[in-house]
């Protein structure tokens, strides 16, 4: 251990709680408002696009380069240079740089019918990488909020 050597860390862990009965299908995005081309977009998991299943809670991503070990694994990330496995050095290089920005998603039922669009995230970070988001959105069927407590960022959908 080289304690004190390398104090890099990404700013927060992401916790996703989907209390709704809809699947959340879309693009989970991280990035840096100050370092160009440092974005990460979660690659598709089944069924075809990054999907948080209905009623799945306590999903945690400790860092980008351990995302394959989560209860809802992200095995690959799209970076500016292409797609990389989560444990690739190219992903690790962005751990001290990028932050969780936004989740653009649709609520869908199991038959694949779409209900609403949400653009939930940290407005300051996501706008810095070209994505408009808000920290709270109330729809007709669902509701979503994004907030930070301590070293954690929470995305909760009801």
């Amino acid at each position, binding site marked *: 251990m080289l304690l004190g050597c390398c104090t890099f860390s990404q700013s927060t862990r992401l916790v996703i*709680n989907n*209390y709704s009965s809809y699947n959340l299908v879309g693009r989970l995005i991280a990035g840096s408002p100050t370092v160009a081309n440092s974005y990460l977009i979660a690659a598709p998991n089944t069924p075809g696009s990054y999907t948080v299943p209905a009623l799945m809670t306590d999903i945690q991503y400790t860092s980008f380069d351990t995302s394959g070990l989560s209860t809802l694994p992200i095995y690959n990330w799209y970076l500016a240079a292409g797609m990389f496995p989560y444990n690739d050095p190219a992903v690790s290089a962005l751990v001290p740089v990028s932050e969780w920005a936004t989740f653009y998603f649709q609520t869908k039922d199991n038959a694949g019918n779409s209900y609403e669009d949400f653009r939930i995230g940290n407005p300051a970070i996501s706008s810095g990488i070209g994505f408009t988001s808000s920290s709270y959105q109330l729809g007709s069927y669902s509701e979503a*909020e994004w*907030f930070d*407590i301590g*070293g954690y960022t929470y995305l*909760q959908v009801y």
Partner: protein
Amino acid sequence: MVLSAYAQQGTFILNNYSAYNFNGAIVAGNPTPTGGTCYPLVSSSNPNPLVVPADSHIGNGLALQIDNYRDQYTASLYPITTWEVSTSATNQGVLRTWSHPAVMPGGAVSNNTKWGGSKFYMTDPATGAQVPLFNANIAVAGTCNTTVPDYYTCPSGSAEIFTINSGTNTITYLNIY
């Protein structure tokens, strides 16, 4: 290792030993605020005011006791139907029914809030009139609300708020005399 930010909400007990009715709101906040904020914040919203009648305390079994935001609705003598939850400077004052997942035990808000304060006024149970000077805004010492005292006194009575650690639980007492 990174330390967990999780903390337990704990139990809230209001003992009204006075001859007047308590009317007010109770507030919980982040016990370990970071970045100078107290979020998340939770306060009682409905009923408004929350009323605890004169002479209602643990001595006669009539105290207000809240073990968590959800179960109090069925367990408390003075059920709170709606909580007002603020999770950030931009997510302010969202109303949550007692059974909503946002305030359930083990959730992000429950795990990161602890009882911290109250603002209240006292009324005469016979007439409903406010008791002169017997109103205050008090908060547990050392919580994020540093400008509010943890003790209040006036000619008609006094109030104090404090916490006691009991095993793994933290009990916050608001006593009115």
